[in-house]
């Protein structure tokens, strides 16, 4: 019974070129509501991992299961946001957020209510009727996250969502995504190349190795909740960050030595 809920990856491998797996032997259990971050050197298959969970790619071997059901393709039970906000530029902010609800056939009145709530949640209510081109990078990313959350996904997948933002905005967005996660209660799997971000946000940090990508470390982050900017200056945080940085660096060096 307890086995069936949450996200589970069983012996997952993915090859783009036969015989050269990008990911191999991934076994992973993520209980509902957990905030997991994934770090790893470039080429470790971080993004591929998210694509497999999203159903944009199928594993070459193994299975991805969500609440006991095999993932066979993309669908609204998993929301996703990318580094580029990828909004529909001709649709207003509100209609961007509504896209998934329209596809789901949610009645107009319910849709409007849900969109209004989401925009309130991401602090963009007054931009509801504005085209995305008018928004800043951080605001666009908020819309993209609101859009991903519209259909109440069981898992929110984030692929380096703050990678293109300036430092200040990035910090705001980190606190923002934490807040959203607490309000919505969905599982979050976030890929990032920023170790500080991974340790600050995750309840659990997965470190991936390269060629092939495997989970080399699965670290539970025991930092006080809620995560505030003070947590970031604590000795425990700094120690943990240094530890993860060393792990990622070691993987990177090993990868460099092989190529």
């Amino acid at each position, binding site marked *: 019974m307890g086995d069936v809920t949450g996200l589970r990856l069983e012996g997952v491998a993915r090859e783009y070129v036969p015989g050269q797996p990008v990911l191999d032997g991934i076994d992973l259990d993520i209980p509902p509501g957990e905030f997991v971050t994934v770090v790893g050197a470039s080429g470790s298959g971080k993004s591929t991992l998210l694509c497999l969970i999203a159903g944009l790619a199928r594993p070459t071997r193994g299975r991805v299961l969500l609440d006991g059901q095999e993932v066979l393709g*993309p669908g609204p039970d998993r*929301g*996703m946001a990318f580094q580029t906000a990828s909004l529909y530029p001709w649709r207003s902010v509100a209609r961007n957020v509504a896209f*998934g609800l329209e*596809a789901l056939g949610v009645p107009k009145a319910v849709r409007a209510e849900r969109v209004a709530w989401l925009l309130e949640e991401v602090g963009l209510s007054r931009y509801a009727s504005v085209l995305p081109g008018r928004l800043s990078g951080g605001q666009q990313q908020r819309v993209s996250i609101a859009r991903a959350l519209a259909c109440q996904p069981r898992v929110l997948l984030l692929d380096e969502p703050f990678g293109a933002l300036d430092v200040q905005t990035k910090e705001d967005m980190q606190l923002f995504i934490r807040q959203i996660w607490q309000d919505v209660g969905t599982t979050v799997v976030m890929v990032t190349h920023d170790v500080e971000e991974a340790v600050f946000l995750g309840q659990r940090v997965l470190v991936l190795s390269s060629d092939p990508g495997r989970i080399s470390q699965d670290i539970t982050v025991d930092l006080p909740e809620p995560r505030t900017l003070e947590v970031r200056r604590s000795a425990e945080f700094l120690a943990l960050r240094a530890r993860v940085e060393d792990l990622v660096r070691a993987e990177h060096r090993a990868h460099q030595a092989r190529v």
Partner: protein
Amino acid sequence: MTDLMTRPEIPAVTPRRVKLLKTEVSRRTAWILRAASVLVPLAAWWALSVSGLVEDTFLPSPPEVWTAGLEMAESGDLPADVLASLGRIGAGFGLAVLIAVPLGFAMGTLGWAQPLLEPVIGILRYLPASAFIPLLIIWVGIGEASKIALLVLGVVFFNTLMTADAVRQVPTRLLEVSAILGAGRGRVAARVVFPYALPGILDAMRVNAAAAWNFVVVAELIAATSGLGYRITRAQRFLQTDRIFAILIVIGLIGLTIDITLRLLRARVGRWAT
């Protein structure tokens, strides 16, 4: 010390003032230039026609052309011809767009449609449509059908390939996002690909409308009993160069109107892109 490589250095240069290749002019200057662009050739034509250097039969003066135009307009010939030509472009170009847009859409989205259609259309578009006139007359006669067919042939292949290009511009990421949001292929085609590609599709139509307008006149030069091209051949028979000039100006103005209309439509539809 001596076996160390010396650091290569270049002789001192005095920096030269350089300018950017692209230059801008003020709005006022731009308007003056725009006016000159039309008025200078007009003045040159006028001066040449009244100078006596060229015989009047070859180069009528602007007032003569104006009078000839008014005559044709008053007799009702010119409006009828304009309507006939516009009817043909409406039918021929309209048909071409109706074929080209779905075909181009398919080529830009469906993996198998591209390799299936691209080679044959790539060849067909290099066959000059005008060279098909004799064939078309043999196939469908000298009536309206051959003129419409010429228009379609002249435009449809280019318009298909350009539509396919516009459709291919849609970022893959946007398609992925849409699938993750639960939108099926039909919804993605109608609600994502089409709106994204529409400005590009209209651009393609604008370019091809100009070509279509050319082909109307060509078709009417061959075998027709109405239309602006037909009116030109009539005028030629009686050496009425003033009439030919008047018709050419009308053709130019109608072309310009079509272009501006599509441009405005494009600006309206593509507001989000700016």
